[in-house]
């Protein structure tokens, strides 16, 4: 009975202790709070990778502490949370969970970025390796291209070789024919060589002969030179004498020459005057030509030049231009009746008319032609010969 009592008492005590919460132990948190606690712990451990989120972890832990505090503070004596405190505890738990999620998201982002960096580094490394192969491929391509080109060149060279072989065969044929020709030429060459040696001997003999002749020629040349020098000296003396004689001779010759030229000119002048057609009467200092007046002037008025008169005027003008050392004294003579047509005034008028005609035909000093009418004062023929006295006298006088 006593044992039964003790067992009952122990059972009662056990029940009492089980129902009353023990202060030293953690209370039985709701599932959402436990979930939040777990997440915050996870965030705290993850934060070791990223220092930048430490503040966020502290905030999350603070929220959890608030949730736990609210929960503990609002526990009833039965160990259950007061319903009024439920929203606050739930709020802090949710906030803690959100804050922890924020931390985890940031850490995850950092991890992704790190992984991305590593991956990019790997990509770069692989690219470098691939590039090596790509470069090699490019080189290979270039080499293949080169090989193709070389093959083409080789083919071209082969074709060229074949052409050359053909040409060679042709040339060999030509060569054989040329060889025959060459043999003949060789024989000819031998003949020519022997001929050449013979000619060479002759040449040597000729050269010897030339040398002898050259010596003789040199001696002759020296003798001639000495002779020439001697002659030159003599010649120089003679030349001096000749020049002295020539100087003496030249003086007299020039004088004679001038005289001869003067005489020749006079002779020529006389012949020219004779060609005028009148009657020439040479004087000691002058030369006179006489023309019938009716030949030079138109009768009966005698106031115009006849055709012959004009011709004579032209000839006289040419004569005066060719011989500037002469001048003319023109005199017109009259005779018979009517007296007024034959007097000095009438003949003077005729003389001036002829003078004007001469002056009009050439360019020279007017003073070189003098005109004078002498009327009937100087007859040269009997009285019956009227036309013989009617005349024109041209006297050429040296100036």
């Amino acid at each position, binding site marked *: 009975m006593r044992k039964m009592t003790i067992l009952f008492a122990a059972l009662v005590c056990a029940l009492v202790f089980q129902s009353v919460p023990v202060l030293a132990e953690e209370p039985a948190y709701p599932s959402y709070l436990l979930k939040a606690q777990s997440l915050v712990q996870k965030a705290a451990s993850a934060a070791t990778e990223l220092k930048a989120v430490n503040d966020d972890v502290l905030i999350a832990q603070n929220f959890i502490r608030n949730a736990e505090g609210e929960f503990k503070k609002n526990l009833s004596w039965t160990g259950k949370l007061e319903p*009024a405190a439920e*929203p606050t505890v739930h*709020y802090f738990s*949710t*906030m803690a969970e*959100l*804050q922890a*999620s*924020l931390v985890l*998201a*940031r850490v*995850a*982002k950092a991890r*992704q*970025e790190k*992984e*991305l960096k590593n*991956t*990019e580094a*790997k*990509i770069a490394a*692989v*690219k470098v*390796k*691939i590039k090596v*192969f*790509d470069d090699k*491929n*490019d080189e*290979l*391509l270039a080499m*293949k291209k080169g090989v193709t080109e070389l093959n083409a060149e080789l083919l071209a060279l082969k074709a060229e070789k074949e052409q050359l072989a053909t040409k060679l065969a042709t040339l060999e044929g030509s060569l054989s024919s040329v060889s025959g020709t060459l043999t003949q030429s060789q024989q000819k060459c031998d003949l020519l060589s022997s001929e050449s040696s013979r000619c060479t001997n002759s040449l040597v003999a000729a050269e010897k002969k030339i040398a002898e002749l050259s010596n003789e020629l040199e001696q002759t040349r020296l003798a001639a030179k000495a002779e020439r020098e001697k002659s030159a000296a003599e010649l120089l003396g003679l030349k001096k004498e000749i020049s002295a004689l020539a100087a003496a001779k030249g003086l007299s010759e020039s004088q004679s020459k001038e005289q001869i030229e003067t005489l020749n000119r006079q002779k020529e002048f006389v012949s020219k005057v004779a060609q005028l057609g009148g009657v020439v009467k040479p004087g000691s200092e002058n030369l006179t030509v006489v023309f019938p007046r009716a030949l030079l002037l138109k009768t009966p008025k005698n106031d115009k030049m006849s055709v012959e008169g004009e011709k004579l005027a032209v000839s006289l003008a040419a004569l005066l231009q060719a011989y500037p050392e002469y001048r003319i004294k023109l005199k017109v003579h009259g005779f018979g009746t009517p007296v007024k047509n034959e007097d000095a005034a009438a003949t003077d008028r005729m003389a001036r008319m002829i003078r004007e005609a001469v002056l009009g035909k050439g360019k020279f000093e007017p003073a070189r032609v003098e005109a004078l009418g002498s009327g009937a004062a100087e007859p040269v023929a009997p009285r019956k010969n009227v036309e013989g006295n009617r005349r024109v006298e041209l006297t050429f006088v040296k100036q």
Partner: protein
Amino acid sequence: MGNKIAILVVVLMSCVVALPAFSSGDGVNPSTMEKYQQAKQQIEALTGSSIARLAPEMVKEAGQSMTAAQSGLMSGNDKETVQAVEMALLQVKLAGALAEERAAAEKSAAAVKELSAFEQRLSQILTNQGDKP
């Protein structure tokens, strides 16, 4: 007498029950209102953004928190409003972080894919099966 006591007890109990409601319905602080507006603007700004594309579930949760905050605002419960607004702000922050994490994950996956392709090509080259000029 018994009825009076019963009425008195009922009235007393009603007062006790209604007291917290009255005390919480004193109205919302201007600073809470300001926070609410900020959170609302932030959530509205997320529409069509990369964050909304990459972390839509968190943006949705933030919207729900804002609905709760609006409810608190309507009932004049400052505490409920503050808690809902703070939760919404934290959810927006978390949405941004999740979006960044997922964008980084996408980039990383693309890089891994690229690396895999290059490694495959290199492997083919090394086993004499690659590009042959």
